[in-house]
């Protein structure tokens, strides 16, 4: 099975080579073979006697990340959609995309997507699923940005990537949580341990993380905003990724994890309410659109919401209706996207206000559109598959189980009304789509091109899909037992096979359908009068705005925040660094009871030491307050010499000597370059800044003293220096211990300290030399 998944990706490596001869043979003809072969490979599993198969290939076994492919009913439904629709879309694209386009790239992305999507639906391993999941986002990003010289494409690509990868990362966290809870990375393994998951305190969090992934991918309200902008992609892509397959990955995910979560009441509440709200919002918004693809995009959102809601219901009927509708939606929506592409291709516009009366120019396209839209609207006719699943949807809304939670019961009450409400708009835009484009006034002069029927090749794919619509409509049980039932069973293990019938008496669901049609017709006929209402809500307010505002805010505020503290002043930087170090260390010192003051083992303090220290202190303060740079340099020297005197007092002659030399050299150097030093200026800082700086400085100094005293007071161990004294002569062969330490015991330190000085000299030389050279040029 791994071969079936990876073959598109492998083939993609050869596409750039094949595309070299695109002017002789359209690259699409070569690519076409791949999904078709995959389709043939998987179609053989269809049948009533199907049972799940598993196939494992190691990848990173030590992290539990392996290619565990698991083909059950649900996966089978999806792989057939991916490969089947994929075949048709590639065929369609051959006629849609001119050979002057960058075909190589297009098909590489498309094949990459195919592998990714097959991987998503076949992986039983959560992390591999996540890998493929992100790959779908990436390929979708590239396909939306295919015509990247359009500003809208770039905008849409970025938006879809940010939203879907955001969801992907969240889902990833959810997967890790489930792995931590159950100790397995296999979804089937998690289903077996669902009791542990349901008892875990992490349950709400895990569910939330995973649903966020599903909702963003499947464009659920309010994350749906990326889908309309994704329509900037070439139409074959919209048909394939953004209606038939990728956007259903979220549904797949929810369906896949239903056996785990379905026992949890909040799963029902969250999934159904998001689904039903998306259904209503999407269909309501679709009515307002004027771009054909935008209508279809919002329609897709609404249909995805409907399926999501059914997965949330989780009853046998609902689950069956959901998988049934996944199939049906792929057929009619796929064909409608292709129809929209044909119209765009042949007339040069997708604006429904400019279009009209095309039926006389494009009779075949019109027929396809008619069947597609009516199936989408759920018109009660025995040869439209959309009606069956819509009817089952209504049925499922009517017999929901009451729960223990008030929210659940409230939902159960209102869901049927919302379902009807949303479906009315679905009816309206479906009808509008067809009649707006194909009937009415012909305004040919407004069209960029003179319309005519599309070439046969372009019609082929939508014809196949519409034939699917009709076949399933006429013989629903053809697909029922052979694979839909298996799919439903993998979502709801209690599912049993039932026949689907067109006529089952005058029931409430039928009544709901009739209400939808009735009110829908009225709304459509009076649609001009409702324009004001449609404009009223949501008016200027939309989630698109929210997205834009977020990005805007990130842009402006990140700039403001960063510039606020990165102001280029070393004084500010040091004040913050010292201040933080001071506060945090002080807290730790106090919390861990670190202050120890021990007066043992201290030398006597005489007037001599006190006066030296006083001189040092006064000199140090003098440097700060001096406005004359010469004075500052000299006073600074006093500090150094004072320290040298302290060394003398405490009998460290070598240190005293070193200190004296350094101090003398430093002061001399300072004086040498005195001329070039900038003038000291009076600081014009506010009292507040000054006092903050002063307190940070004093505080830090005090803290260091406190730690120094405490450290000195807690010498709990013998130092290693005794060893040096003992061995300096015997092993080191020297009587001056300091010398032996420097050149032998810690010779490595000395070697590299010398290196440091060498580098410094070289750096200065190079700096001066390079400057000079450049001046000479």
């Amino acid at each position, binding site marked *: 099975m791994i071969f079936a998944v990876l073959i598109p990706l492998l083939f993609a490596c050869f596409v750039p080579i094949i595309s070299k001869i695109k002017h002789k043979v359209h690259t699409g003809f070569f690519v076409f073979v791949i999904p078709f072969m995959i389709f043939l490979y998987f179609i053989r599993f269809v049948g009533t006697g199907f049972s799940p198969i598993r196939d494992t290939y190691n990848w990173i076994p030590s992290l539990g990340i392996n290619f565990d492919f698991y083909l059950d009913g649900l996966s089978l439904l999806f792989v057939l959609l991916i490969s089947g629709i994929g075949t048709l879309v590639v065929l369609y694209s051959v006629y849609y995309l001119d050979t002057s386009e960058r075909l190589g790239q297009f098909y590489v992305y498309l094949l990459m997507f195919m592998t990714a999507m097959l991987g998503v639906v076949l992986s039983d391993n959560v992390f591999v699923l996540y890998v493929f999941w992100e790959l779908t986002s990436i390929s979708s990003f590239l396909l939306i940005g295919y015509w990247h010289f359009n500003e809208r494409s770039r905008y849409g690509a970025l938006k879809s990537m940010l939203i879907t990868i955001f969801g992907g990362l969240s889902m990833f*966290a959810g997967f890790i*949580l489930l792995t*931590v809870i159950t100790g397995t990375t296999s979804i089937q393994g998690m289903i077996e341990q669902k009791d542990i998951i349901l008892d875990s305190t992490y349950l709400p969090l895990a569910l939330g993380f995973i649903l966020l992934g599903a909702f963003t991918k499947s464009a659920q309200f309010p994350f749906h905003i990326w889908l309309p902008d994704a329509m900037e992609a070439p139409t074959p892509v919209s048909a394939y990724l953004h209606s038939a397959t990728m956007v259903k990955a979220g549904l797949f995910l929810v369906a896949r994890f239903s056996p785990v979560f379905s026992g949890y009441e909040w799963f029902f509440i969250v999934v159904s309410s998001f689904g039903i709200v998306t259904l209503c919002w999407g269909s309501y918004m679709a009515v307002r659109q004027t771009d054909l693809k935008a209508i279809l995009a919002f329609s897709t959102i609404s249909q995805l919401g409907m399926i999501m809601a059914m997965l949330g219901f989780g009853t046998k009927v609902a689950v069956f209706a959901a998988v049934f509708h996944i199939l049906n939606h792929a057929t009619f929506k796929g064909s409608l996207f292709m129809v929209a592409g044909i119209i765009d291709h042949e007339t040069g516009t997708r604006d429904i206000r400019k279009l009209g009366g095309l039926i006389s120019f494009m009779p075949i396209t019109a027929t396809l559109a008619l069947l597609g839209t009516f199936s989408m609207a759920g018109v009660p006719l025995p040869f439209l598959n959309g009606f069956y699943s819509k009817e089952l949807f209504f049925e499922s809304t009517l017999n929901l189980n009451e729960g223990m939670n008030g929210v659940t019961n409230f939902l159960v009450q209102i869901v049927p009304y919302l379902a009807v409400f949303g479906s009315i708009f679905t009816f309206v835009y479906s009808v509008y789509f067809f009649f707006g484009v194909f009937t009415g006034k012909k305004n040919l002069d407004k069209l960029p091109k003179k319309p005519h029927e599309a070439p046969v090749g372009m019609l082929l794919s939508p014809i196949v899909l519409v034939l699917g619509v009709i076949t399933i409509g006429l013989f629903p049980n053809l697909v029922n037992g052979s694979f839909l039932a298996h799919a439903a069973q993998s979502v709801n293990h209690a599912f049993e096979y039932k026949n689907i019938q067109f006529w089952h008496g005058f029931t409430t669901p039928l009544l709901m359908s009739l209400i939808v049609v009735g009110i829908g017709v009225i709304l459509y006929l009076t649609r001009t009068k409702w324009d004001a209402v449609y404009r009223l809500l949501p008016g200027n307010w939309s989630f698109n705005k929210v997205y834009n505002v977020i990005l805007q805010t990130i842009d402006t505020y990140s700039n403001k925040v960063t510039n606020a503290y990165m102001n280029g002043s070393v004084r500010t930087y040091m004040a913050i660094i010292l201040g933080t170090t001071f506060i945090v*260390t002080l807290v*730790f010192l106090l919390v861990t009871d670190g202050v120890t003051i021990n007066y043992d083992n201290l030398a006597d303090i005489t007037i001599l030491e006190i006066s030296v220290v006083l001189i040092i202190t006064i000199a140090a303060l003098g440097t700060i307050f001096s406005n004359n740079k010469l004075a500052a340099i000299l006073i600074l020297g006093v500090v150094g010499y004072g320290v040298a005197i302290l060394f003398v007092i405490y009998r460290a002659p070598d240190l005293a000597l070193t200190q004296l030399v350094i101090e003398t050299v430093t002061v001399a150097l300072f004086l040498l370059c005195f001329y070039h030093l900038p003038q000291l200026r009076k600081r014009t800082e506010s009292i507040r800044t000054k006092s903050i700086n002063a307190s940070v400085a004093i505080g830090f100094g005090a803290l260091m003293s406190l730690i120094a005293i405490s450290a000195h007071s807690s010498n709990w161990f013998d130092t290693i220096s005794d060893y*040096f004294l003992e061995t300096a002569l015997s092993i080191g062969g020297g009587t001056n211990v300091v010398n032996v330490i420097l050149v032998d015991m810690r010779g490595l330190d000395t070697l590299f300290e010398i290196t440091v000085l060498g580098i410094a000299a070289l750096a200065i030389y190079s700096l001066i030399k390079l400057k000079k050279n450049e001046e000479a040029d």
Partner: protein
Amino acid sequence: MSNLVILPIIIPLIAGIIAVFLNKKVVITRGLTKIFIIANLAIVSYMTWIVFNSGSIILETGSWVAPYGIILVADPLSIVLVLTTNIVAAACAFYAPYSLSLKKEQHYFYAFYFFLISGVSGAFLTGDLFNLFVFFEVLLMASYALIVLGGDKVQLRESIKYVLINLFSSILFVTVVAFLYGVVGTVNMAQIAERVQEVEQKGVLTAIGILLFFVFGTKAALFPLYYWMPKSYIVPNPVISALFGALLTKVGIYSILRVFTLIFIHEINLTHEMFIWIAGLSMVFGIIGALSTNNIKLIVAYNVIPAIGFIIMGIGIFNQDAISGSVYYLIHDMIIKSALFLIVGVIAYVAGTSDLRKMSGLMHHYPLLGWLLFVSAFVLAGIPPFSGFIGKLLLLKGALTDEKIAIVIIALLTSLLILYSIMKIFIRGFWGEKNTTMELGKRSMKGFIGPIVFLLTFSVVLGIGAEYIYPSIDTISAYLLDPEQYIDSVLKE
């Protein structure tokens, strides 16, 4: 005991000295540089093999026995980091001749380059706290030299902040070493660990540890200590930025990792808990910085900070998965950060500007460069199947095992924004209409691409081939969580 350990330190030192004297003969220096760095890489690879097969390699320098002399320790952690250092350095050695002007090459670039590597390797390999300070000085001094190489006004302006802040932290470092010596009477890290353990890190020891954390944190560019970093990293030549981005901050974070898994591990509820906070803040402020600018080099430089945040997060969580994650992420970040600095260096070179607002449509002329950037963006953000993914997976797993939910959410949002910050370059710079105002297509990318591809190959292998690498990282993590192993290998042999 084996003298092998000194080689990764001494070979670059010798090579550097040779480079000083051959400075005018650039062709020879270039050749020798490549030979030396590849030889060094080969030796380090061999050492890595030994360390993972027969345990740490210890050298008591000058035969002064532990804990009295300076001990060099090639343990699994340090040798892996030295190996990564040399991989990055090798890529830079091949990139440098194309990127640098002849004058900069003549003015001791190669010497400073080798001194930097010598210092970095020494810092990774030493088992002595004071010696660590010395190697810090070596690598910092080399970095001061590199940052001003060329002597542009902007370089001098930024370098003064860089030097001042780092000088301060060096002073603090040596002071803290003195404090610590005052308490435990030794500078040998294994013995410090042993003695701190003996008194259960009582009294002033935790405060000293925290001071040490701030010293290393300043070098590592943690929040709120990173002010010196972003702007000073972008002023030198890209190849120098790449070395800095890959090595300098990482030495700081390595030191934290070492000290806070070996020595100060007896007040974890206090110290390591704080690390998680700092990790979160570093991620947030770092990524805000990366989003705040249109300078492509600065975008990458700011991205150093959240990456450090990820690593410190793992140290803070302090369980097997999290530490593995930190180590994995550390290696991953050294490689991808240098690759990214090299990539934006090429972009700025071919576009003639680092300002994103002035770019568009580079894809029409430099598709390969575009795809390299594209892949790097996903590597950096930890999107599978690349190296960042494995590190992130381990870190998040560690965090969730310990119920640290907030940091997980911050880490994920940061990942998204990291991706956004780099994709911005791709979308605005590479996509779009052909730009006629820029003189595009004229400058050739010849020579630049090889080293970048070389580094990205490692990123891909670390991700897809994780099965071959992860067990070693897991070994390192188990080793770090059991300090006795380190102490025994140094003191009881």
